[in-house]
């Protein structure tokens, strides 16, 4: 497959996208979409027709050949993928992501592109939803720091595996409703707080129950290992739990 110039790729993509929306594609649709002069569009169409990608009669509709459709789809997918990468993973604003995707897409070589596609697929097909490290990264972007000091003095590594995946039932202890029961999944806080919570019995697998919320809304009273422990929501949010019962009878 012969390579196309950046602008030709853009034209091809524009024709394809327009063809999905409109019954027929006219030159003026493309002019409008790409914000270029009619003459340029006509010129480009001629080259694309020469390459066997489009069929274009002068003053008539523009049609893509099968080859053209395949080609355009690839370009479009590549564009989408990059937009996704920029927007959903790196967290760039959607509009900037689209723009940058337009710019970058033409310069990446095939291997890089393929790897990015794989990367996105890896994340998208993750059975437990968005991986924890990714939400951590987004937190990091927003706040300029790690959500918890997970890298203790830099000599202990935070290891993520199945336990660290956030799925629908994994929530912070602070978000439980009164009467709800849950199981501790993990405690992630700076060392002294974490140790205190562990010592108090908040170890993985332990059953907890949110018993009460203080009249002013904070702290909370949790039953763990058969006793009442009160925590501020701030501290409780360091504890990830897996909801066991959603029945919150006492909750008003």
């Amino acid at each position: 497959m012969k390579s196309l110039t950046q602008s030709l790729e853009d034209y091809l993509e524009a024709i394809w996208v327009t063809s999905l929306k409109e019954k027929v594609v006219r030159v003026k649709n493309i002019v409008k979409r790409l914000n270029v002069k009619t003459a340029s569009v006509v010129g480009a169409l001629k080259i694309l027709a020469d390459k066997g990608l489009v069929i274009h009669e002068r003053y008539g509709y523009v049609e893509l050949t099968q080859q053209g459709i395949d080609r355009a789809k690839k370009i479009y997918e590549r564009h989408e993928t990059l937009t996704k990468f920029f927007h959903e993973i790196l967290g760039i604003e959607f509009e900037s992501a689209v723009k940058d995707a337009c710019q970058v897409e033409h310069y990446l070589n095939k291997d890089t592109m393929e790897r990015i596609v794989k990367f996105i697929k890896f994340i998208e097909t993750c059975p437990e939803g968005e991986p924890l490290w990714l939400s951590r990264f987004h937190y990091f972007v927003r706040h300029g720091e790690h959500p918890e000091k997970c890298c203790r003095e830099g000599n202990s590594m935070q290891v993520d595996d199945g336990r660290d995946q956030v799925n629908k039932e994994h929530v912070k202890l602070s978000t439980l409703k009164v009467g709800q029961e849950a199981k501790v999944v993990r405690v992630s806080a700076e060392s002294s707080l974490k140790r205190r919570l562990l010592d108090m019995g908040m170890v993985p697998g332990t059953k907890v129950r949110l018993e009460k919320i203080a009249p002013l809304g904070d702290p909370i009273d949790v039953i763990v290992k058969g006793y009442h422990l009160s925590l501020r929501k701030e501290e409780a949010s360091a504890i990830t739990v897996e909801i066991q019962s959603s029945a919150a009878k006492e909750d008003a």
Partner: protein
Amino acid sequence: MAQTIRIALAGNPNSGKTSVFNNLTGSRQHVGNWPGVTVEKKEGRFFYDEVEVTVVDLPGTYGLTAYSLDERIAREFLLHETPDLVVAVIDSSNLERNLYLVAQFLELGLNLVLDLNMMDILEARGVSINTEALSSILGIPVVKTVANKGIGIDALRKAIVETATEQQKEITFKIDYDRDIEAEIETLSELLKDKKLSKPYPLRWLVVKLLEGDPEVLDQVKTWPQGKEIQQRVLESRIKLERHMGYDLETAIVERRYGFLDGLVRECSKKKLGIKERLDVSDRIDSVVLNKVLGIPIFLALIWLTFQLVFALGNPIADWIDALFGWLGGAVSAGIATIGGPVWLSSLVSDGIISGVGSVLVFLPNIMLLFLVIAILEDSGYMARAAFVMDRFMHALGLHGKSFIPLLIGFGCNIPGIMATRTLESRKDRILTILVNPLMSCSARLPIYILFAGAFFSKHQGLVLFSLYLTGMVLAILIARLFKTIFFKEEVAPLIMELPPYRMPQLKGVFIHMWERGSLFLRKAGTIIVAGVMAIWLLASLPIGVEYASQESLIGKLGSLFAPLLEPAGFGFWQAAVALIFGILAKEIVVGTLGTLYGVGQEGLRVALLQYFTPVSAYAFMLMCLIYIPCIPAIATIKRETNWRWTGLAVGYTLLLGWIVAVIFFQLASAFV
């Protein structure tokens, strides 16, 4: 053979450890502080079978990490002072979590006796414990007690003495941390085996602590020859294990420890303590006391009751003591005069010594009553609930839920207010609460406000009073936030607090508690108060021959010296300055001093004030009296509870703040009025 042994009492907070201590030792107790810190250290003694046993009560802790002060004290003591025996007191109704600490004691290789306290609560729930099984698995003697009813104490004494005088058995106790961790423990143990340095720690304990990442042990190892190598090996083990297990090693180790205890409790108790089975009396009380609607009204009502008890009941007794010492001073000085003693001597005795001692004792009724109420609130389990209810509000001010009560008590008197901060665990919260406590306008300042407000704002007395109290509170909030950011920026004080089951406070325990803390005030703060009173007496009496507190006395000269500084605040005359200096003795003295200095009695004072003060400068003076330097007893108490540096800060900032606020008010108000 007369033998002496030394034992330690250790256990979780709320395990009834204090009850056990009180019942073991009776009244033979001594209260001091642990070296260098203001954590209470209690020691007591008892005799059994001709053996004298000294009992050291360790701070109640949940673990033995190096992170909290209490835990460090306990750990240091157990590791370095090697008591002959440790009695682990546990709340049997909360077996698993209480045994967690015991497991750590066992890992430390301590000579232990296990005291299953509060057996009655457990039995009332229909749970029985197989003590033989527990004893044989842990390899230590187990005694059942109900300390607050005195049950089982003799058996405990017997077990203590017998175990301590026997040859210590080989420690067989070992928690199995699973194959992978055990393999690493083994390799590391090999590495550390011939290091004599590892003493006084048991080898296995040391290795486990290293793997847990205990900062203190890690630091210590760093200083050893080959420390770097050991550290490297530990790090490798840790990474290897974490990679294998998929989560961090510290969590894994604690989890295994609890896993072991879960099994132990299952095996040794008949009815497992499930989560739902605990809906007992305590929970029913809480459903009212911590109720969304009733929680705060109940809290406020209890505080009001505390206030009434401490002040309404205490103040008449305090007045009586005050009158007694006043009469005593008068009588003694009259007596000295009749036998022809010099005037300075009678003044020294009556104005110096007797009034000095009097000003210490005058606080005693309030303080004793306060500690009585606090002991009841604490022992019953309500104190934790009070913190639970108020924490949101106090946390917003940068303080702790438990700070509320000390601050509120400060409105009555700052001294018990400052002493009440003992209920706070975190150093940061304690110091902040102490530092801002003087801004709570105590009742001794009330006579000043009443005098000035009556003279200058007779139509708006209530409003003026209210504005002053409010100013104090607002300043307290601002200062607390300021000091928090300056001094405790890094320190986080999380709220992780057990809400213990409600219990009937034990009369004996409550009174012992009251007496300990009250007498501590007498002994420690008392000396500073008497010294302060003497110093002021000297200033007022020197040079020799001068009329007491006149303009020619040292204090009068000091007043003249400081008067120009007070000019921008609108009361730049020596009488005001001297009154303020005397006010450091006790704020209410300001009124009497002004009366004396203007040469009028209490009655003529209002008229006299009208000549010297304008309404604006009067208000500025009241602001000054509200904020400036805490009284000497308060200063002494702050010193008692902290150190000279914090005390200096408390004196310095209040003086500066008082002056600034008075000056700003006077200048602004003068410009507008």
